[in-house]
């Protein structure tokens, strides 16, 4: 993780939100004024002391009367209350405004990222970022920043007052603060390391627990859960040790910081006592320092706590900032119209992190033809479809439709052209009809029902509690794999897109569902260009073109009979599927 600097984080948030900071600045100024009002009663006390000790500060002799003193204090209280209400209101409101903008912009950005970022286990990570971490960032502005600045303002105001009264002693009182800061600074690295260490183990333990819960049935079946319990207990005790480490490096230095800061008073006593500055101070000067020192030291003691809170929240900002730096899908200013629907992969390479997945893949799919993609698992078949759907961007090479690069076609236009059916069907929370209607927002209920009938959904939808109004998806009623697939085919049917991508659609279904899905697919594929990933070679033997993918490149290409004549990898796969007999 990058070094966390709190000011950097705050500046970035403001810049990325694009919001105006005028209101926040004004609010913070009011908060500082509120703090000044907190010092003034002590100043009044000092002035009163001057009056009764018969060394009144010019113009303040009236204060000797307790009644006047009470009036002045009451006046101050009302002014302070006014500042408090105004400052807090402004700070909260403007902070929420800044973070609202920040959220909106970030979500807008996420929306324009390649979908690959949003698939698989990364969704969980992203979800954490955009809920928990963003809430923590919100708390920087709403809860930490204003208090931090107000507290620092109070300390500085008091120090300023003391400096006016006697600058040398003020300097003595504050001289030790840099030393205290040094303690905080030097411990910061160690603290950061301890936090990082625990964070890593914490996440690992979290993952271990999820694995344990997920695999519990399997573990019980094989009577292996005891081993895992011991493993988990080990991880928990490790967490305990690491947490104590954090407390040592987090809590310890803060204690030391406070001890040193408060020792400023001891230094003051010693310097004054030994008369190191060779100046004799009048009693009033000493009284000022006795009265006001704690208004300088007190806020500093609190400051350490706010700084730790701020740093903690800024760690979330650093994580979010990584999200800001994910490159967006390049979109054209003016989308170019593709000339026809012929599809062209031209020397396309793609790697996932360090691992190359596709290398110099080239092929052409003429409009209206069927292309099948086969090959061993891990050959890069699904990646091929994902690149075509712009889930990822190719590292090099180009994908063109009708002679126009996907980058110039733009996502909006591309997604009007393609339709997809995945092995893992994604349904969202909503009714059957909503899920299918996602294919075409303008479709009437009748059109949707028509599409469902064509995809052989009608029969099982009728069996559901509320028919087409039944809720499906994560929290909805349970549908079988075949049923979910047929719904997604209905969705694609409704969309009527000319390019169809199919990813191992009929992998493991019972014979009835399988045949139902197959006949729906037949409906869907009519008149489309189709790219289909298959592992049952029988289902694609009539394809216009079969691409055999192996280790990220096209090993063979041709029709079923051409490939059989070649006697290569395809023939081997075909024979392997036959040889079972």
């Amino acid at each position, binding site marked *: 993780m990058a070094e966390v600097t709190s000011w950097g984080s705050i500046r970035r948030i403001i810049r990325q939100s694009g919001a105006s900071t005028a209101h926040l600045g004004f609010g913070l100024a009011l908060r500082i004024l509120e703090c000044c009002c907190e010092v003034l009663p002590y100043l009044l006390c000092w002035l009163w002391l001057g009056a*009764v000790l018969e060394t009144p500060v010019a113009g303040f002799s009236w204060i000797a009367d307790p009644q006047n003193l009470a009036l002045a204090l009451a006046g101050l209280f009302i002014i302070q209350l006014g500042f408090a209400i105004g400052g807090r209101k402004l700070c*909260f409101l403007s902070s929420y405004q800044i973070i609202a903008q920040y959220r909106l912009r970030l979500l807008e950005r996420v929306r324009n990222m390649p979908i690959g970022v949003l698939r698989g286990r990364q969704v969980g990570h992203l979800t954490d970022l955009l*809920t928990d971490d963003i809430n923590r960032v919100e708390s920087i502005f709403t809860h930490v920043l204003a208090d931090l600045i107000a507290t620092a303002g109070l300390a500085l105001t008091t120090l300023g007052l003391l400096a006016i009264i006697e600058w040398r002693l003020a300097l003595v009182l504050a001289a030790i603060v840099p030393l205290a800061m040094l303690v905080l600074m030097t411990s910061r690295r160690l603290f950061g390391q301890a936090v990082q260490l625990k964070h890593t183990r914490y996440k690992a333990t979290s993952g271990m627990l999820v694995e344990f819960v997920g695999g519990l049935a399997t573990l019980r079946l094989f009577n292996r859960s005891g081993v895992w319990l011991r493993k988990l207990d080990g991880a928990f005790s490790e967490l305990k040790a690491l947490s104590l480490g954090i407390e040592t490096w987090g809590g310890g230095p803060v204690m030391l910081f406070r001890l040193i800061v408060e020792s400023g008073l001891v230094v003051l006593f010693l310097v004054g006592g030994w008369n190191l500055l060779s100046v004799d101070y009048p009693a009033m000067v000493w009284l000022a320092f006795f009265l006001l020192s704690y208004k300088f030291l007190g806020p500093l003691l609190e400051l350490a706590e706010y700084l730790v809170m701020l740093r903690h929240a800024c760690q979330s900002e650093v994580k979010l900032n990584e999200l800001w730096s994910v490159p967006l899908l390049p979109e054209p200013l003016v989308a170019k119209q593709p000339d026809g629907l012929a599809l062209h992969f031209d020397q396309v390479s793609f790697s996932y992190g360090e691992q190359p997945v596709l290398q110099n893949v080239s092929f052409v799919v003429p409009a209206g033809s069927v292309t099948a993609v086969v090959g061993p698992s891990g050959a890069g078949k699904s990646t091929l479809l994902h690149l075509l759907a712009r889930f990822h961007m190719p590292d090099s090479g180009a994908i063109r439709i009708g002679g126009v690069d996907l980058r110039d076609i733009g996502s909006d236009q591309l997604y009007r052209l393609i339709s997809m059916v995945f092995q893992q069907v994604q349904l969202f929370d909503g009714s059957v009809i909503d899920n299918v209607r996602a294919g075409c927002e303008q479709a009437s209920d009748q059109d949707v029902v028509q599409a469902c009938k064509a995809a052989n959904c009608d029969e099982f939808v009728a069996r559901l509690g509320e028919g087409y109004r039944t809720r499906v998806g994560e929290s909805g009623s349970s549908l079988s794999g075949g049923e979910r697939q047929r719904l997604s085919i209905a969705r694609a049917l409704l969309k009527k897109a000319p390019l169809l991508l199919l990813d191992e659609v009929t992998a*493991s279904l019972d014979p009835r569902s399988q045949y139902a899905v197959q006949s729906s697919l037949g409906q869907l594929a009519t008149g489309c260009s189709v790219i289909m990933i298959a592992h049952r070679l029988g289902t694609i033997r009539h394809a216009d073109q079969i691409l055999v993918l192996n280790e990220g490149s096209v090993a063979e290409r041709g029709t079923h009979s051409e490939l059989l004549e070649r006697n290569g990898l395809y023939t081997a796969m075909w024979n392997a599927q036959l040889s079972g007999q």
Partner: protein
Amino acid sequence: MGRHSDHMGVRRILLELSVGHRLAMAGALIATLIAVVAELAPFAVLFFAIEAVLETPQASTNVLVALAPWLFGGIALKYMAYGMAYLISHHAAYSIMMSTRNRLVARLDDAPLHWIHAQGAGALKQSVIQDVERMEAFIAHHTVELAAALMAPLCVTLALLWIDWRLALAALAIGPMALLASAIAMRGVGQNQDRFNHETASLNNVTVEYLRNMPVLKVFCRSASGFRLLRQRLRAYYRLTEQITRNTVPGWALFTSVLGSHLLLLLPLGAWLHTHGEIGIAEVVVAVLLGAGIFRPLLKVGRFLMEMPPIVAGIKRMAPLLALSRSKGQARLAADDAIRIELDQVRFRYGDGEVLAGISLCLEPATFNVLLGPSGSGKSTIAQLVAGLLTPTSGAVTANGVSIADLDDQERARCIALATQEVFLFSGTVRDNLLLACPEASAQEIQRAVRVAQVEMTIQALPLGYDTPLNELGARLSGGERQRLAVARALLADPAVLVLDESTAFADSLTQRAFFQALLTEYPHTTLLVVAHRLYGIEQADQILVLEAGALQKRGRHDHLMAESDYYRSLWEYEELSERWSLGGAAPAQEAVQTSDGSKLASNAMGG
């Protein structure tokens, strides 16, 4: 289980969890008390310093030097005592958290699977990891801070009383005022908090839903409308924060201002008393300084009240898990007997629905049994009952007359293995996963199992073969490959009874046939119960059981069922049809296909 947990209050849970650490907590509180008393030392020192300065400013210097060690001693004692208090409380907190986690996962191990399933891995992780982590703030910080916040005002009041009782009263008078202000500040706080929590939760839900659905929404050009929904929620959330801010800020500002206004009465009264010659200057100044410490700590109590609800909610979430228990079976079977599984009038209810309505069947030793039926007919439930993962609502599932639920865990694992469609592979290598059940398996045994499960080629094609780690690669194995790996894992356990629940996801009819052939040849003594999707290979079964809506409709061998069961026959017809199908190929029939079960499928309009 549920009823009991309702009565288990948060306090009782905390008390129960803190057993063995209470002495430490008491120690932490004593250290806190020392720190609070030490906190008064600087004020005493200041008192003497003021007296000295007022008497003779020039001679005061010696006094200051003499006081400095006392001052430093007081400050140092305070921080040492606080440090000690926090050290002890953190030790106790992390020990309690560790033992809580240990207990929670031990309970998880006992929990019924369907209960775990209903909770979800995410929620359980939240309980064991996040909710327990939250306890730290309460045990380690809040206890010490709360104790300090309550003891400090007491000590300060005593010190003020010692100076002058009237000054003490003036300082304390802020109390009722603050109480009044807090009553104003707290107006509607609970309600606001509820609304805020509700709005935060719904914003989070919409965000999660949006991220999850984005691929579909985007591909179907609906991402704008999904985003609109999210933006609406976001706007509603910020509208509420604005409303709450406007409502609560004045009250809250009043409260903090009043808490900070301790000089309002104290100083004029002190001045008045001094004018009347009742107390000295030093007393007034020290009273002024002490007054600051009387109610400020109460702000921390306010913060504590704000931070407590999520901690309490977390502990409440743990309650049902802590209340779980399971009676573990002890029974064993005679070692050498062949195992015969019997289901007698087994009923199984899940929630309101009846899944199995009185099933009786028998799996003879070393036979090949197949379960068929439409989805939702109860096939998987039978498989899990036989494997001992579920217990019947009524009736009996027995192995050689002993209820499977009564079997000792190790004994059950020795006799019965199950491989399901939902395969769980653990992080680790392919070999680690294969050897889960039987860590001592020999190379030959492994080879035999993977060969039978038709996964040998797949493993060989992996970059490191058996030593390929599955954590990143796990996702890259196809569903079928994962299932075959799980079958090999179950075979390695070499159980007397092997249950395969829709796990025969083989590429096609031919591989599936090969699998059954190899299984019957290599493991002739194993009793098989197969819940099958695809039919190829089951012709040779000793018993085929056709299940429908939780009841056995037909049973018998292939030939018998072909003659007797329309459903069975129609399955074969569909199997045939889909085997012949190919995309872009000629349709088997241009009109609607009429099959033996009388249902229709839309025409396969492939226009070949």
